[in-house]
């Protein structure tokens, strides 16, 4: 398979901002890679992730995911793209509080029009694999931080995306839970899932990614293949 993600001279400037959030970033991610994007707060890490996911549009430059020119997509096109190609995991989980665990996990498939039986089967598989099947009828408010993040991971994998994007996946949980989440992501990557993780933690980056891209002031400061994972 060709490059999964290809960013070419991507710049994102917000209205009224003096400096761009992302400045002339070029980046490639190959299939099966686990890449950590690191940097201090405000460096542009999350903006980069949003651009890759088509949730925002660059001011200039090109964003390609697979064969898709993501920066050229309409809102509808970007939504369809995300259904098929991208799974998102957020720092604060972003689960819908008025839906049960199973309904949260089913949502991407339902929005994509997947047949009900097929969608439910996939959801049950994921809940079992992530060891939260016993909580399928619970509401997010009743779950621990780790459980919520596992539900979010299950939801992100519902439509078998080519690319998993995680924005500070352990930022809202304790370290033990964070380790657990990290191991899950490792397992997924080991199974072939292309993974891009945004983190400000060098420890996380070192343990769960083979490649670390440092971002500073919106620019790529360094791009290092660490090779080391545990």
């Amino acid at each position, binding site marked *: 398979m060709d490059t999964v993600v290809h960013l070419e001279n991507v710049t994102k400037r917000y209205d009224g901002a003096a400096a761009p959030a992302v400045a002339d970033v070029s980046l490639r991610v190959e299939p099966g890679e686990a890449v950590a994007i690191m940097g201090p707060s405000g460096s542009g890490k999350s*903006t980069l992730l*949003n651009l890759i*996911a*088509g*949730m*925002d*549009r660059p001011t200039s430059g090109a964003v390609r995911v697979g064969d898709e020119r993501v920066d050229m997509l309409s*809102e*509808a096109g*970007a*939504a*369809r793209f*995300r*259904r098929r190609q991208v799974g*998102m995991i*957020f720092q604060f989980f*972003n689960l*819908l*509080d*008025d*839906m*049960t665990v199973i*309904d949260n996990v*089913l*949502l*991407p498939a*339902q*929005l*994509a029009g997947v047949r*009900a039986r097929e969608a439910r089967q996939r959801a049950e598989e994921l809940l079992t694999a992530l060891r939260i099947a016993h909580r399928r009828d619970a*509401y997010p*408010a009743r779950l621990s931080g780790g459980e919520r993040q596992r539900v979010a991971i299950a*939801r992100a994998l519902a*439509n078998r995306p080519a690319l998993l994007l995680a924005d500070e996946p352990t930022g809202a949980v304790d370290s033990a839970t964070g380790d657990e989440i990290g191991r899950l992501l490792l397992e997924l990557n080991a199974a072939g899932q292309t993974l891009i993780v945004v983190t400000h933690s060098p420890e996380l980056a070192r343990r769960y990614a083979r490649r670390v891209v440092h971002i500073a002031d919106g620019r790529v400061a360094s791009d290092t293949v660490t090779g080391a994972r545990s």
Partner: protein
Amino acid sequence: MSAVFRAARGGLGGRKLQAVIIGLVVLAATAASTLALGMLADAHSPFDHAFASQHGADVAVTADTTKASAAQLSGAARAHGVTAAAGPFATESVTAQLTIPGLNGTITTPLNLVGRSSPGGPVDQLTLQSGHWATSDSQIVLSSTAPGQVGSTVTIGKQVLTVAGVANSVTNTADAWVLPAEMSAIAGPGGTGQAQLLYRFSASATSTDIAGDVGAVTAALPAGAVLGTVSYLDVRQSEQSSVAPWVPFIIAFGVIALVISVLIVVNVVGGAVVAGTTRIGVLKSIGFTPAQVAAAYVLLVAVPAVTGAVAGAVCGNLLAAPLYRENAQVYQVGVLGVPFWVDLAVPLAVLALTVVAAVGPASRAGAMSAVQAIATGRAPKPRHGFLAQRALARLTSVPRAVTLGFASPAARPGRTLVTVTAVLFGAAAVTFGVGLATSLNRAYGEIQAAAMPVQVSALPPGLAGGQQAPGGQGKHIKNGKLKVIVGPGARLTAAQRRAITTAISAQPGTLHSVTEATDHLSLPGLSGGHGGAQLTAYGGGDPSWTGLGLISGTWYSQSPGVREIDVNTLFLTDTNTKVGDTYTLANGGHKVTVKIVGEVFQPGNDVNVFLSPSTLSAIDPPAGGVARYDVSLKPGVSPDAYAAGLGAALGDNYDLSTQSGGAKELLAVVALVTMLTLLIVAVAGLGVLNTVALQIRERAHDIGVFKALGMTPRQTLTMIACSVAITGLVAGIIAVPAGVLLHHNVIPAMTHAANSGYPSALISVYSVPEMIGLALAGLLIAVAGALAPASWAARSRTAAALRTE
């Protein structure tokens, strides 16, 4: 205090949509309420204005001068309770021959004549509409209710007088005035034998007061001297404002607008406070007291509300202007307008309601702890709707965006209930407005006999087209245009009738025709205020072909020997009779006893009698015969084209006219109904817009999550539209019977205000398919109100939505 103002101003800047909605809602409520209350105040206001400005006579007494001397008549002014008196003025009922400049022939008309030296005086000051007061004995001044115009010649016995002016008496104390010396000349050596005395009293507000006043004057005069009295209350009742029939429906709309506006203001204000909870927490954390926080939020609402109230009062006055203008012309009191107290009271009342609606949620916000407010505002958690969400998620055959939308109202049941109620009132207004417009159309059609839009008569030689021959009794229309209703003497000859009937039969498009003749008589039992009764004789066909509405009973028989009549409600009220009673028509030496067989829908201040040509001939022989033909047309035939064709067939000696079928007045009222309905629909739509905007704001982050998971803009739009669809549909279904019930109560109130009953056709205006369509009005209002914010949400960038907390 300046900190509070700054806080309120800052809050306003960030809540432009809510400020606009509050302003518009208050504007609509104020406009509708100003119009309604103004119309209500105006029901008798024009007459009252005129009565006050002209020092109208509370009581006009006709006294027998053979039983009371001039000194005794004058002395009666000192009776208990009399505050002003005028007279005695010599008075006599005469029959006059009247000519009109430019027309051949004369009109014979009864006149109640009074001798007065001037139009002024302490009581019953007359206002001159044209010309001047009589300056010589050969001049006469006519009342605006009498036929004739300046320049007309009036012959009374051997006296030939020229009309010098036309004047108005607010209580119609006479049909005409001459100088006292001329009165003596008309009456002859014996005098008139009657005198008119005009009085104003200290207590005259009620009929009981008037009865006491009349008693005092009667007691002050010799026994038997008082021949008759007319109270201003009777005249006031019969001369009530032409807007009185419209008052019930305007009030109905006004009340609906007020209720919706209160509901929406409560919703908007409550939502503004909820949406600004974080800001409240921030204000408190920097030192604002609870009272200051509450004051800031009340001010935040009050500012757009004041703007809306002022603008609404202006709009209400503009809406009322056309109706007031008509009254001002009728009563010659200058330009009337919405009373000042209404312009002051309504905006203040609406403002007060707005502030009261704001105080509750603002006080709750003020009482919140700073930490709680910030925490609540950052991530308001749903507390309701879980069951609905779960149940609807099971409907896997329904698109997920739809089920997400349907579940949404359950999350905020209080707000949903208020929104349902607001939409319900809006949809009820639509149902009511549609029914009202239909009823009004039917009413006008029935009043104007619009089923027979073509009239055919003959022109006497020498007359230009459009004029009709005088030669009988007539009555001027009050708008100042000269129109003479053809009366006795102006009848078609046998040859003319043959020519017309032949042409009508041969003309394609003819459905039916009837003959028509009219007359105007004073009949027994009618109060003087109506100026007699208008008699109309339809013959040569079924009177029901005219399209005139029957409230009850049947149409009179056309058989020559059968004496039956149909009358309007005012006749029955005035003569204290009912359908089925007998009544004796009396005119001069002719008396005919007839049976009242039907009540005809002819509202207003005129007494109408419908009878066969033979009965008309029996009561007034000169009035027999045929004056014109009325023709009804087959469906799809244009009246103007038909009249042109018939006119070509008949030639120049015949006059054809067509009715437009929709009076200007009808169009104006239907336009007003439409405007008020749309105003209320717009207000209800604004309420939905605010609810949806609030929903979107509260769920902006969730919407971002949906989009991140792959929800397209169309799915977002669908979800939001569906969130209001159920609300709208439920509201619409309930609104239809509510609107129908309102219609069924308002129509009788309107016809009652117009001195009439109502035929069933005015009530039975809703068909089943129509009601089904109207039930969708709520859905349409709801979806229309949701579209703008829904489109915005659909178009918004996912990343921006996710950043919202």
